[in-house]
């Protein structure tokens, strides 16, 4: 009678491509940028230059990893630049007052955690929109940095270990780069392979569902801001170590760089969807664009324009080429 047939089995390759479209897209774009700058400048592909890029990019990369967790919960942290500035300034002040760099660093990590927790508390336990809490945080925290430094850039002296953190190398690789890669790997594993990572995704995908299955939804939301605070502390310390000084002027506009890296990496601002690998590639792409344009002697008046256009292009490609989904040929 009737003619019952089963659907063709799904193709693993196609489904895999679909599931990883975002990361693939930014990976492709990243490689294209690399190729472009390699072809057009002598210096770009030199070890020295590449190591420079990863060292410079460490703070962005580290905070972008934490920001990925934040954005995965459908949140946002606009205060990262201000937290970095605050930590940066505080660290310098503490060291100027005789604390050694290890104590200072530990205290700064704790301070970052506290600041992040405070923001997270307002967001998760008081239910205020993350955008507005961290916008207020952005203003308050840089205000505090300003207040405690009175605008001075505070020199850091005689802390060889600390400077090594910002400028040193290990087996030829810049220490900040090593730190950044470590943070990214840990972030990657946490996001993909741990219960906490799963909880973050769940909360971002459907907060109420996460709550109903008994996840400590509020705590999870709160925790990502704490993580972000800690990541900012690391970034603030690295910047202080690199500059050899602390100032409230650090990391202005940093939040936009970080968020751009995360979004470029395919993480959705609506929450629930994203990846650390994408974020890392997004951050690196932004960094090499900045680096490459300077190497190409592009007029600084044009850099902002060109950077913006390239980013728009990257996301466009991401959406156009990969958004529609791969299709299997019409084999019926």
């Amino acid at each position, binding site marked *: *009678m*009737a*003619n*019952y*047939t*089963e*659907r*063709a089995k*799904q*193709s693993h390759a*196609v*489904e895999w491509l*679909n599931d990883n479209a975002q990361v693939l897209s930014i990976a492709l774009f990243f490689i294209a940028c690399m190729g472009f700058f390699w072809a057009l400048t002598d210096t770009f592909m030199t070890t020295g230059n590449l190591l420079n890029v990863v060292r410079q990019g460490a703070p962005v990369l580290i905070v972008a990893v934490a920001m990925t967790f934040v954005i995965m919960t459908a949140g946002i942290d606009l205060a990262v630049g201000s937290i970095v500035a605050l930590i940066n300034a505080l660290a310098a002040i503490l060291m100027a007052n005789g604390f050694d760099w290890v104590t200072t660093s530990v205290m700064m990590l704790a301070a970052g955690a506290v600041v992040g927790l405070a923001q997270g508390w307002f967001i998760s336990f008081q239910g205020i929109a993350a955008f507005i809490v961290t916008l207020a945080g952005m203003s308050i925290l840089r205000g505090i940095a300003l207040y405690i430094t009175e605008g001075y850039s505070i020199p850091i002296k005689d802390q060889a270990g600390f400077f090594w953190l910002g400028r040193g190398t290990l087996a030829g690789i810049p220490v900040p780069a090593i730190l950044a890669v470590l943070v990214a790997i840990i972030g990657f594993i946490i996001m993909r392979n741990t219960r906490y990572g799963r909880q973050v995704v769940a909360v971002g995908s459907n907060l109420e569902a996460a709550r109903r299955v008994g996840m400590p939804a509020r705590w999870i939301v709160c925790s990502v801001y704490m993580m972000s605070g800690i990541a900012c502390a690391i970034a603030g310390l690295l910047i202080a170590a690199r500059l050899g000084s602390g100032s409230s002027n650090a990391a202005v506009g940093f939040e936009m760089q970080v968020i751009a890296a995360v979004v470029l990496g395919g993480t959705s601002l609506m929450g629930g969807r994203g990846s650390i690998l994408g974020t890392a590639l997004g951050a690196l792409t932004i960094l090499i664009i900045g680096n490459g344009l300077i190497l190409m002697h592009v007029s600084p008046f044009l850099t902002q324009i060109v950077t913006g256009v390239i980013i728009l292009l990257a996301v466009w490609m991401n959406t156009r080429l990969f958004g529609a*989904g*791969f*299709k*299997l040929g*019409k084999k*019926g």
Partner: protein
Amino acid sequence: MSETAQRGGAIPPNSATPLVSLRDIRLTFGSHQALRGVDLDVMPGECLALLGDNAAGKSTLSKVISGTYIPDSGTITVQGEEVRFTGPNDARSRNIEMVFQDLALCDHIDVVGNLFLGRELNKGPFLDQKAMLARAQEMLEALEIRIPRLTARVEKLSGGQRQAIAIARAASFQPKVLIMDEPTSALAVAEVEAVLSLINRVKAKGVGVVLITHRLQDVFRVCDRAAIMYEGTKVAERMIADTNLEEIVNLITGGH
């Protein structure tokens, strides 16, 4: 076996031209073959039941008819004229209305606003809130649904109330084809009765109804014909008068 027969065949339609006629509709999501070549005719004044197991492709097929999904291949003919829908707007402008399985309500808009969504009444340049409120009352009464405050956002309404709103919306604007994807799944007894009699009413006016449902007893009360889907294909078609519950269940499960 001919191509057409392979696609589940079709009961030769009565003399009238079908309101909607699908031929060899195929649609693949990624590598998942949601529809593998489906033929379907919707005749005026008849209720066609679209039956099948979960994930058989019923909702997908009905979304093709309503212009929500664009098929990869196949043809759609509306009242004898071949069309290419580029979006729901095209279908709607040909009086094809649909009650979606996910209801497609705007949570932040009030009951009245949802009933008139996309068809707001104007008075000069402005919305005619009063007229809409009055008509909304009538629309809902026909479905025996009680909603205490028509200016409340639909967000907080109960599952059944929400479903009733979606039905009222689709049914109220003189559709020629009315597609209902599990419209009664969340409704209580009396409300189900109201929907079934609504179907009978619109049929009498010559509307072609496509009813997707898992409540087979309802099929026997209002439908004239049933198309059964299995794994993205249409495997059979039956006139309701010529079949019975057992056969339908067997067709759906494919004898499994």
